[in-house]
């Protein structure tokens, strides 16, 4: 972990490191944007989804860190922020004037590290609204560092902050702690900040420096004592510098209160989910994607790339003539032994045939290599189309929705609301994020399971995602099929899926040692999100997703292509046939749909379209296909996230569960 850190943040000669630190939701990003302008490098901390932003300001390299309440190693974000603070030359600590009491704990801890600190006292306008008066001079004197009042959203006070950074000083450190720090840093030859973390019992720092202690057993358990003293000091300072005119107004706005009201909260969730469904589910997933995928992806991109290749290589072209309803009414086959360029006569014949007709083309390349690259599941045809014209708009939509939920302050409230429900399946409220994202793209959601704090939770969440949650590509087809099958079928399908979801979660919760991480979160006030922040977050995450998962889509397509060319795919379909016919009581062709589901989950469901199924057969088929293995890209990502062993267990379970449950449903219903 730590060695990566050094590689990640390379030393640039003659430049100082300015690190922005603060509690969550204090407006750090606005400061960062002000200092760095547009030239920002985004990288991810190795092995995490935590983004690190880096930019330049005068002779400083500026780093943004995740929001934290203190220096410690309770989770990934804290570890990363802590490691970045260790490297800092100057710390800009952004503090929320309204929540000064809470934020001062971190400020005092930063001052105790012995690094130069500047405090930006942000949200002064909100403090004024709440009739909070702060004696800034006195606060600055008590802390021993510059304190600058700012209103970040109005860009007020930035210039003064910039000036203060140039002459940042070390503040008034706690005398007792300072003595201990100098003793330890001399004795073990470690830096002052490392000494502080050792005294406070930071496990990561102690593990890292173990070798330096020369086998000396040191008793580091002063954390609680130091923390309580620091907290008392913060409270004293607040008592001295803050005066409130009235007895404090309402805690949070009406919306914030409604959002966690036991009854109205439910309505609130319903409204939010419905709006999200309208925008992401309907507008993007159906209307926009059907245009980008079919028009741009199939008719323009795939057609042209295949036509270009067909110019020079042996190919067989099937022309499907379509009527007004896009139904195939006639098929004609043309063979070009040496490519289009070398068979002008056949090409003429083809052009005459298609004149004034609505047609679509199927290219069958003779060479296996070309089939793998440009065929039906071609690495350069299907995968590119899938990634750019189907997944990309969808992922952008989902990440935008997530950014809105985050920035508006609703997400922690939603997590609070569903926490108890999530406990039943061994998760805490935070797990609602990957769960929601799963309905967009399971691959994307599998990556975001990293948000969860323990590996136990990541394990349960990944299994639930990969086994039970249908992604949006599938959802569209499933919805259409269920519409056809009728209300009763839909109800049975929903009940079955929900029971499996609960069973998987409850069983894993029972079997795996440990329990859900208890919920303890600070609820930020609800705000209107800022467009520039939304855009930046969405863009960063989307870029990261494509970078992280894109490659696996290509590798998956390549493997499937190879299987298709070598006939393995057909073999597999035959092996599954008896199971499909006797146990699931579906037509033999359904097994092709199952196997196609490995390539892309919606292919699987779409394969049922063409089959003539009774409503109950539809239910059995859809249950199987939904529970069945996720697409190959999400399998790859899962193997990477959870390791080969665990990933394959989940993968095998999804086969077993899909065919068991699907079969039971079928035996009961049909």
């Amino acid at each position: 972990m730590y060695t990566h850190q050094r590689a990640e943040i390379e030393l640039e000669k003659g430049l100082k490191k300015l690190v922005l630190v603060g509690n969550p939701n204090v407006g750090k990003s606005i400061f960062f944007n002000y200092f760095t302008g547009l030239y920002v490098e985004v990288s991810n901390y190795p092995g995490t989804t935590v983004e690190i932003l880096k930019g330049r300001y005068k002779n400083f390299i500026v780093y943004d860190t995740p929001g934290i309440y203190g220096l410690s190693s309770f989770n990934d974000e804290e570890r990363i922020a802590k490691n970045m603070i260790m490297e800092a030359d100057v710390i800009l600590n952004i503090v929320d004037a309204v929540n000064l009491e809470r934020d001062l704990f971190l400020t005092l801890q930063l001052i105790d590290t012995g690094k130069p600190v500047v405090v930006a006292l942000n949200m002064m306008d909100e403090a004024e609204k709440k009739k909070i008066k702060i004696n800034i001079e006195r606060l600055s004197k008590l802390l021993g560092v510059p304190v600058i009042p700012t209103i970040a959203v109005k860009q007020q006070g930035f210039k003064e902050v910039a000036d203060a950074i140039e002459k940042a000083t070390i503040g008034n450190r706690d005398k007792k702690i300072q003595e201990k720090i100098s003793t330890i840093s001399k004795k073990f030859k470690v830096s002052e900040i490392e000494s502080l973390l050792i005294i406070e019992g930071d496990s990561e720092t102690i593990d890292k420096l173990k070798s330096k202690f020369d086998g000396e057993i040191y008793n580091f358990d002063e954390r609680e004592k130091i923390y309580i003293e620091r907290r008392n000091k913060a409270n004293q300072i607040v008592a001295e510098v803050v005066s409130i005119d009235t007895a404090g107004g309402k805690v949070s706005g009406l919306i914030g209160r409604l959002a966690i009201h036991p009854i109205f909260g439910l309505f609130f969730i319903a409204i939010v989910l419905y709006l999200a469904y309208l925008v992401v589910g309907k507008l993007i997933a159906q209307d926009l994607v059907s245009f980008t995928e079919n028009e741009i992806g199939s008719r323009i991109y795939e057609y042209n790339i295949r036509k270009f290749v067909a110019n020079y290589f042996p190919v067989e072209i099937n022309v499907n003539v379509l009527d007004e309803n896009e139904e195939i009414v006639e098929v004609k086959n043309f063979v070009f032994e040496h490519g289009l360029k070398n068979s002008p006569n056949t090409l003429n014949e083809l052009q005459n045939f298609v004149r004034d007709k609505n047609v679509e083309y199927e290219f069958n390349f003779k060479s296996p290599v070309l089939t793998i690259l440009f065929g039906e599941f071609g690495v350069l045809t299907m995968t590119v189309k899938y990634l750019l014209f189907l997944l990309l708009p969808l992922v952008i939509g989902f990440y935008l929705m997530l950014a809105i939920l985050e920035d508006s302050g609703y997400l922690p409230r939603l997590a609070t609301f569903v926490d108890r429900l999530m406990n039943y399946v061994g998760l805490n409220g935070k797990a609602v994020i990957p769960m929601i994202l799963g309905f967009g793209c399971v691959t994307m959601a599998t990556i975001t399971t990293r948000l969860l704090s323990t590996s136990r939770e990541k394990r349960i969440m990944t299994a639930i995602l990969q086994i039970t949650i249908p992604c949006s590509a599938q959802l569209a087809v499933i919805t259409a099929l269920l519409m056809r099958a009728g209300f009763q079928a839909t109800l049975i399908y929903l009940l079955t899926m929900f029971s499996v979801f609960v069973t998987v979660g409850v069983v894993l919760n029972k079997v795996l040692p440990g329990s859900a991480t208890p919920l303890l979160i600070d609820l930020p006030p609800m705000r209107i999100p800022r467009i520039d922040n939304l855009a930046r977050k969405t863009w960063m995450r989307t870029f990261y997703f494509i970078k992280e998962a894109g490659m696996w889509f290509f590798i998956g397509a390549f493997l499937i292509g190879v299987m298709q060319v070598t006939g393995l795919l057909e073999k597999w379909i035959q092996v599954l046939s008896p199971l499909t016919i006797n146990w699931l009581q579906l037509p033999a062709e359904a097994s092709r749909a199952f196997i196609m589901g490995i390539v892309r989950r919606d292919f699987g469901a779409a394969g049922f379209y063409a089959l003539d199924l009774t409503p109950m057969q539809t239910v059995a088929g859809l249950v199987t296909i939904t529970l069945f293995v996720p697409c190959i890209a999400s399998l790859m990502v899962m193997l990477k996230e959870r390791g080969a062993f665990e990933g394959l267990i989940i993968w095998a379970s999804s086969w077993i569960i899909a065919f068991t449950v699907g079969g039971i449903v079928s035996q009961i219903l049909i």
Partner: protein
Amino acid sequence: MRRKREIKKEELMKLADVEPGTEIEICELPSGNIKTHFVRLGVIEGTKVKCAHKLPGGTIVISKRHREIAVGSEIAKKIIVKKI
């Protein structure tokens, strides 16, 4: 003397059992990481807070001046408070 002590005993209760809208004082936090986090958020033994909401399932939301903190039901059972 004895009566006083009895009253004191009655006053102590778990945060999980507090009715919404009640003003309370935190008397005892479970030690370990949970306590550490509470301390950072500004809640220590002796802090006065208000129980703002009680959600179905036992999650408690406490408010303190301008802030709200959500406490999962498992933690709320381990926190000892008294009414003010």
